[in-house]
């Protein structure tokens, strides 16, 4: 385990406690006998939670939603610029001219955004590799269990970066380096040295999974940026193809999303 990873684990405190408390409530009504899944069975298809159908979808045993994601703890000189850009984007959106994003240009969000699971997500566990497929834009990331990711200076910048992992009990602890600097989740700037730690674990009933994320980037952040994303198992769902083959949207001179077609007959 790298030093950065060990440090990060110590910072997870509150988020871990809160989400484990949520899990503990479920544990009272669940046991190995009631589920076909083992404690490390993270493979399968998943949808983000709360789902589009709503929190729990009528299941009274469903876990509570994760805590709201905080704003990034950017250093003051970066926060001011980020806040200004966010406010400008909000104003443009309110005026009906939302800023075009990478998504608008058919470019997947990369890490960590792709783990939000805006579209369904498939996890494949094959030997020492965990593969995550995000349906939107057919995004794929590969996590090598038993390896550490390359140090940032040796990591070719990518959208999904480079991920190594190990198991701590039944929690898969993933460390990711080498994310392209212009791959900016929530428009948050980061350095080439950014590391993302994910602690991925099933809740006790094993139909829900949580991903406790810690972004470590001392060049830009005053402290690690932490939040939790959750997923609900979607047995039987077959992932669909998503090739962005007919994008009619682009951006205008102000960077606003706009149809790039002539609607004249």
């Amino acid at each position, binding site marked *: 385990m790298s030093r950065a990873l060990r440090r990060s684990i110590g910072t997870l405190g509150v988020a871990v406690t809160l989400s484990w408390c949520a899990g503990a409530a479920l544990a009272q009504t669940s046991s190995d006998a009631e589920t076909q899944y083992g404690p490390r069975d993270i493979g399968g298809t998943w949808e983000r939670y709360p789902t589009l159908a709503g929190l729990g979808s009528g299941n009274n045993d469903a876990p509570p939603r994760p805590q709201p994601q905080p704003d990034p703890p950017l250093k003051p000189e970066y926060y001011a610029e980020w806040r200004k850009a966010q406010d400008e984007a909000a104003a443009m959106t309110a005026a009906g001219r939302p800023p075009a994003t990478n998504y608008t240009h058919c*470019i997947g969000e990369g890490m960590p955004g792709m783990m939000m699971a805006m579209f369904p997500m498939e996890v494949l566990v094959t030997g020492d590799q965990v593969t995550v497929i995000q349906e939107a834009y057919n995004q794929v990331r590969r996590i090598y269990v038993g390896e550490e990711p390359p140090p940032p200076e040796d990591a070719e910048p990518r959208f999904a970066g480079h991920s190594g992992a190990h198991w701590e009990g039944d929690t898969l602890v993933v460390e990711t380096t080498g994310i392209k600097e212009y791959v900016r989740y929530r428009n948050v700037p980061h350095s080439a040295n950014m590391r993302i730690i994910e602690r991925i674990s099933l809740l006790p009933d094993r139909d829900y999974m949580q991903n406790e994320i810690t972004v470590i980037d001392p060049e830009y952040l005053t402290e690690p940026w932490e939040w939790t994303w959750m997923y609900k198992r979607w047995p039987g769902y077959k992932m669909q193809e998503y090739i962005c083959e007919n994008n*009619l949207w682009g951006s205008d001179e102000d960077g606003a999303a706009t149809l790039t077609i002539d609607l004249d007959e």
Partner: protein
Amino acid sequence: MSIQIRRCALAAHALALVVAAPALAHHSFAPYEPDRQIRLHGTVEKFTWQNPHVYIQLRGGEDGGEEQLWLIECANPGILNRVGWKFNLVKEGDEITVVVAPMRNGQPAALLKAIRTADGRVLSNGGPAGPATIPLDPEEVTDAGGQG
């Protein structure tokens, strides 16, 4: 007759990327009227089942209104499959009725909210696009909301 694609704007600005947290799907729905929906009836000139959006090109208009060619934006094939659509649900020449939110800037383009197909099926455009707030038929109350 059909809508011609002009790529120059996309090419000119493809590198000027602004990245934000995608809240919904391929793009924000803010270019469409947030509170105004209209009902269009007409004939399908083209149906394209592709990502990132499915499109219906509809020759038609509002009841008693002027006919023109509308570009109706639907969700993507994945979302639509999940709410009961099929790649061949709509065909060229079909007479359909849709409830849509038109573009705020007056272009003849709109975001689908609900559709009645040529054979009478009523479907939503998936959860993220939001429900129809007016009925597909003036004398009906629609329940087309659905989830994506």
